[in-house]
């Protein structure tokens, strides 16, 4: 972990995003404090993935600001990472994928090999290290993508529906790894539309619908006393669109 000034809290200040005049995100404000696990919950099209991309810097907001408490890069190393729903792996071995990420983060030749091997071991992927990454199973690919992100030692890890395409066994494996990362003080921010996963993984819930943040509360409160009718309907399993 870095000794640099902490990058949290992250303040998303009235974030908006519009494409050709159509507002996809409406003045979303959210503060992410350290230490918790935030689940951004909502139906498809709520703007969850968009919010993550804006926070991670892959997109620039058309309104509002993303404010980190300190510089979100240390030299070449990004201090936050994003795991996509469908992992995008390079056409090389599992180990080479991790090494590539570490090279981008500015680690030296020996250091990145050492770190890659220890990260793969930590994620139970040593046996697959020399296998072509793109021929691994869906669960193994997502686990490798998570290992690759973790190898860069991010302080904040954004996850965009990381288990949406996985079976229960692979989902359990990813969630266990996320618990480990959380225990290692990595700030977890993930999106999902799976209520079960939200109950298992969330310390706090940010519920979104149609590009708006409807409510942001501790998870226990959200599930026991949802404030908004939209959240109540979503928890009750009613169809929202």
């Amino acid at each position, binding site marked *: 972990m870095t000794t640099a000034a902490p990058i949290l809290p992250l303040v998303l200040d009235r974030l908006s995003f519009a494409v050709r005049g159509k507002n996809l995100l409406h003045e979303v404000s959210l503060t992410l404090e350290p230490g918790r696990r935030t689940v951004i919950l909502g139906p498809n099209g709520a703007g969850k993935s968009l919010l993550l991309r804006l926070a991670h810097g892959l997109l620039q907001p058309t309104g509002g600001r993303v404010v980190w408490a300190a510089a979100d890069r240390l030299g070449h190393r990004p201090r936050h990472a994003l795991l996509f729903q469908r992992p995008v792996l390079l056409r090389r071995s599992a180990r080479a994928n991790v090494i590539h990420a570490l090279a981008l*983060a500015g680690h030296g030749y020996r250091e990145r090999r050492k770190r890659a091997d220890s990260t793969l071991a930590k994620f139970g992927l040593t046996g697959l290290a020399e296998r072509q990454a793109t021929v691994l199973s869906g669960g193994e690919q997502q686990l490798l993508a998570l290992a690759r992100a973790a190898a860069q030692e991010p302080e904040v890890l954004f996850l965009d529906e990381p288990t949406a395409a996985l079976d229960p066994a692979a989902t359990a494996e990813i969630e266990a790894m996320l618990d480990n990362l959380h225990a290692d003080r990595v700030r977890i921010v993930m999106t999902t539309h799976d209520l079960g996963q939200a109950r298992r993984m969330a310390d706090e819930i940010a519920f979104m619908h149609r590009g708006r943040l409807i409510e942001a509360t501790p998870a226990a409160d959200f599930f026991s006393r949802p404030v908004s009718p939209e959240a109540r309907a979503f928890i009750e399993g009613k169809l929202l669109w």
Partner: protein
Amino acid sequence: MESSGPFGLALQLIWQADPALVEIVVLSLRVTGTALLIAAAIGLPLGAVLGIARFWGRGAIIVVWSALMGLPPVVAGLVVYLLLSRSGPLGGLGLLFTPTAMIIAQTALILPIVVSLTRQVVEDLWQRYADQLRSLGSSSWRAVPTLLWDGRLTLVTVLLAGFGRASAEVGAVLIVGGNIAGHTRTMTTAIALETSRGALALALALGIILLALTLVLNALAHLASRLDRSHIG
């Protein structure tokens, strides 16, 4: 050994590794191989940058490079000839009717193929990888070697296509090389000359070697394509 006509004589020339035949084949491979290396060194990064970068006029540049893929070899030869001729801007270098002039002409023929097809390969990969690579901290420029490496098997096919075009062409090397025996005579120019002289044995021998070369290139391209599809690399 008695021959049974031009075809038998041609096989005999190949079997005995006739010095004149070997000299022509070696020169041809040296010229085309060097042209391919130069075209790859320029065309792969240039094509990759065109695949990634977004700037005003990019579309027009892509169209021009694509159009140049259909450049008639004789026109390429003529342009290089004008550049290298005594009164041309590069006439002082004295390169006309040398293997170097033939390498320049063949590079001009291969380069548009390498640039255009590399651009397409890299652009497709970039669409798939851009968010992930940016997320990992890669700049667009830093992504160029990553994308070239990931597209390597498809790009091998691109280079083989370029090699095939250059090794089979006759017009450009004839104009700028002059088909001088022992100096600038390649397989294709020798075939044209020997056929016109009625010396069919050498022409056939060279034709057989050229066909074999084409077959090997296509087999390699097919293999690269299959490897690419199976994601082994």
